[in-house]
Every structure is written in C-alpha cells, then in structure tokens.
C-alpha cells in the first residue's frame, strides 16, 4: 500500500530550555488517514503535535532543530507565514475551548480574521457545522452563547470551527479526555467520517481509542518515536518490546 505523506518530520529535535523533549523524530502522517499518537504521560506526544502548527512558538525558551514538512514545505523555514500554516493545520484542544461568543461567531472566527465576505461566511458556517454533526442541534440557536452547549457539543463546535478554515489536516490533542462516553463515541465516529476529506492526527491516552479509529499508530516513549506502523499490525505484532509492554498495560 503506497500512501502520500501529507505532513512529516525530518530529524526533529525540540528543547524546552535544557530539557531535550523530542529526539530525532522521523514521522509521516498520511493523506486522508487517521494517525494516532500514543505513549505514556510526558513522552512528548502533545509537544510533537504542537510542532505541526507551531504552537510551541508560544512557549519561551523553546529550541527546535530539524524540519516539519507540510506538502513538501518546511514550516520552520524563516520566511514561513505562521498564520497561513495555522489555517492549513487546524487544531482541537484537550478541553473544549469555545470563545465566549455566539455559536455562529465561534465558527466564523477564522473566516472573519481573514476578512471573508459575509454571505460566504454564512454558507461556510452552515457547512462546517453540518460536517461536525452539530447543525441540527444548534441551527435554532446560532446566536446563543457557545457556553450554553454541552461539553460534547462544545468539542464538536471546536471541530466545526477548525473545519471552517478548510484545513488540510486537523490535529486533535486528546479531544475526548474531558468528555463522557457517549460524547466520546460520537467524536470517534465523526473522525472516521471526516477522514474522507481531511487528514487527522490524534493524540490519545486511550489505547482502545487508537485501535478503534486509527489507520496508523505511532508509539512514543521518552521523546523518541519508538515505533510507527499500521495500527492493525502494531496492535497484533508490535516490533519493539517497549511497544508491546505499553500496549499490554505494563506501564502507562
């Protein structure tokens, strides 16, 4: 099976001050697939995720070496327009974090900061909410506060907000860890639906979740990419002893 890598890293190293957090990471994320990153707490998987839309730039004393290639272009090249990178690479956070604005304005935010036209915004907001399976639940209250939605709805709103930018890839940072099982199931199904149109990279603490929704899985341990493979294969015959130990719950 041949797949095109949509985004990939080349010898990526990252330091927070003296702390060497990511070590020589080489990692492909394939087009229109769900890729899961698993590993114990503090292994650097969230940090790696945040390298893909340069969110680590916000943390002072961060040093990065190596490349992150998005459609072949290194996003850490000096002349990169970060806002453009972040438009193409959407992100959904661990805790649902809608803005204290209306449902509509939340979804329209990315469009309005780029000065999109009003009628176009209306159209895209509806489409994005439909794609995030939220339209039927909120179509009658687009102007009420996003905080009036349930936690699961808020997280789907955040997905809709990211989709409105028409991204190539969406990064999900443990998107269901703050949600109840039902809302979690809905978001997992949604991921499977969304991969038809967008590449998905998801960090998860939940091994079963990775098994349920991902095509590829990356196992990270102490800042290293220990193993990367098709999920099916890794979950049946892990190559590395550490992967095997983690998958069987020896540590975590």
């Amino acid at each position, binding site marked *: 099976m041949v797949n095109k890598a949509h985004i990939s890293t080349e010898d990526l190293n990252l330091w927070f001050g003296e702390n060497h957090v990511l070590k020589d990471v080489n990692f492909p994320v394939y087009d229109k697939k769900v890729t899961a990153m698993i590993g114990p707490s503090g292994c650097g998987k969230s940090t790696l995720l945040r390298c893909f839309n340069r969110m680590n730039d916000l943390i002072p004393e961060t040093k990065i070496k190596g490349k992150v290639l998005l459609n072949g272009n290194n996003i850490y090249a000096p002349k990169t327009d970060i806002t453009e990178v972040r438009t193409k690479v959407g992100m959904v956070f661990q805790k649902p974090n809608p803005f*204290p604005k209306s449902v509509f304005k939340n979804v329209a935010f990315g469009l309005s900061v780029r000065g999109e036209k009003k009628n176009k915004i209306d159209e895209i907001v509806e489409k994005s909410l439909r794609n995030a399976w939220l339209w039927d639940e909120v179509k009658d209250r687009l102007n009420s506060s996003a*905080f009036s939605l349930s936690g699961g709805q808020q997280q789907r709103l955040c997905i809709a907000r990211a989709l409105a*930018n028409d991204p190539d890839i969406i990064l999900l940072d443990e998107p269901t860890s703050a949600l109840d099982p039902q809302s979690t199931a809905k978001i997992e199904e949604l991921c499977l639906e969304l991969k038809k149109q967008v590449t998905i990279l998801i960090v998860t603490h939940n091994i079963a979740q990775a098994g349920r929704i991902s095509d590829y899985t990356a196992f990270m341990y102490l800042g290293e990419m220990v193993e990367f493979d098709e999920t099916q294969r890794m979950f049946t015959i892990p190559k590395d002893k550490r992967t095997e130990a983690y998958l069987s719950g020896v540590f975590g």
Partner: protein
Amino acid sequence: MNRRKIFEFTGVNLLRFFILITGIFLLVFLYVIFSRGGKVVSWEFLTQAPRKYMTEGGIYPAIVGTFWLTVISMLLALPLGIFTAIFLTSYAKPAWLVRIVRVAINTLAGVPSIIYGLFGLTVFVRIFHFDVSILSGSLTLGVLALPVIINASEEALRSVPRDFREASLALGATERQTILRILLPTALPNILTGTIISIGRVAGETAPILFTAATFYTRMLPSSVMDEVMALPYHIYALLTEGSHAEKQVPIAYGTAVVLMAMVLIISALAIVIRYNIRKKRKW
C-alpha cells in the same frame, strides 16, 4: 473545654470583635457627615452658585468642575492604562524593559497625592503652559489614576483563560487580532469595574488639583478645558480654611461632603452592579 476549643473560641470572637470595631467606625463616620451635612443639601444647594463669600447659595459650579475633571482625566488615563496593560501582558519583551515599567508603575502607585500636585504644577501648568485649568488638573489626576488602571487592566487581561488565546492563534489569527477580538472583549467588563474604583478616588482627590485646576471661588461655569474650576473636595478645604464666617461655612462644607460621598458611592454601586451581572453571565 480543651485547649484547642478555647483557642478556637477566643480566635473567632476576636475576629468578630475587630469586625464590629470596623463597622462602628463606618457608622460613626457616616453619622457625623450626614447629621451635619444632610440638612444643608437641597435642590437649591445642588443647582445654584455660592453667594455672599460662600456663606449662602449652593455648590453647583463645584459639582460641574468635579464632573469634568473626573471625566476628562478618565478619557486620558483609560486608553493609556489599557494599552500599557496590553503591552505588559501580551508583548512584554524584553524582560528588563517590563521590569522597569513595572517598578515605575508601583512607584507611581505609592507616591503621595500632594506630590502629584507639585508635579502637575511644574509640568502641566508651567512647562506646558496649560496654566491652572481643567486640562492641567485632569492630566494630573490621570497620572494619579494610571497605576490603578494599569494594575486592574493587567489583572483582567491575565484572567482571560490561556485557552482562548491559543484557540485564536491556532485558527490563524495574528497576535494583534487575538488581542483585539478575543482578549480585550473578554477582559473589558473586568477592566471597567476595576477602573470605576479609581474614578471614585479621582473624584475625591484634593491635593493634585490644589495647584493645577481648582479655584477658590467662581460663579462662572467653565467654558473650555482651559478654564479653572471649583471642585468638591477643594471646596470643602476652602470653606474650612478661608473666609471669616465659620458658623455659616462649616455646615456648607459638610453638605458638600455629603454630595461628594454620594457621588463616589453611586459610582461604586454602579461597579458592583456591573460586576454582579458579569459574574452571573460568566461560564468559564
């Protein structure tokens, strides 16, 4: 009773006692002011100019003067204070510059208000030649209110959850757009309630306007910001230290105090109402 319970008992009752003392002070304070000044306040008192060397008539020019001094000083200090707070919370580089700015702010906050008066006299009245005027007084009061406004704004901006900022940047917004569209609107209600407190302070200050804006007596209302004005706190001071009809002037001074306190209380009450409504609406 064992020792722990005795400690508990005396401790709690000691605290009750202290609260009681504070409460009594406040009540005595209000009683002294209102019992002496309450009778003086009338519609004429609020709407007429003083007459016969301030022994009769009202305090209307002083109310107008304090109103303009407060409004203009806030118009000058609010934007400056909010922008400084934005710089401190969002850009804040390099570190040494931030440290200097912060030391400067805290020093300003601790300076006695009479020194602001001297500063205003030298800088605004003399060097800038604004003379004794509403403008000089408002600028001086504005500088006085600045540290309070900066600190309140900074606190309000910092209390905006980091998630909002990250979400905005992750959607491709620039730093500036994030500040204008997310940080400021979210923090604004808190900034405003924080700064309303400083309005009360500004309205009541005497020393900063002593040499910069206030005049002892004028029947005229100000026609521009370059006019000198009467002001409530200074009027109280003048009534008690100038003139030769103490028996008539002292009640007017208490009446003026009642009006000034009522103004400040109304402003504070407004702040409480706004804050209450925000807390009710806030959900993060």
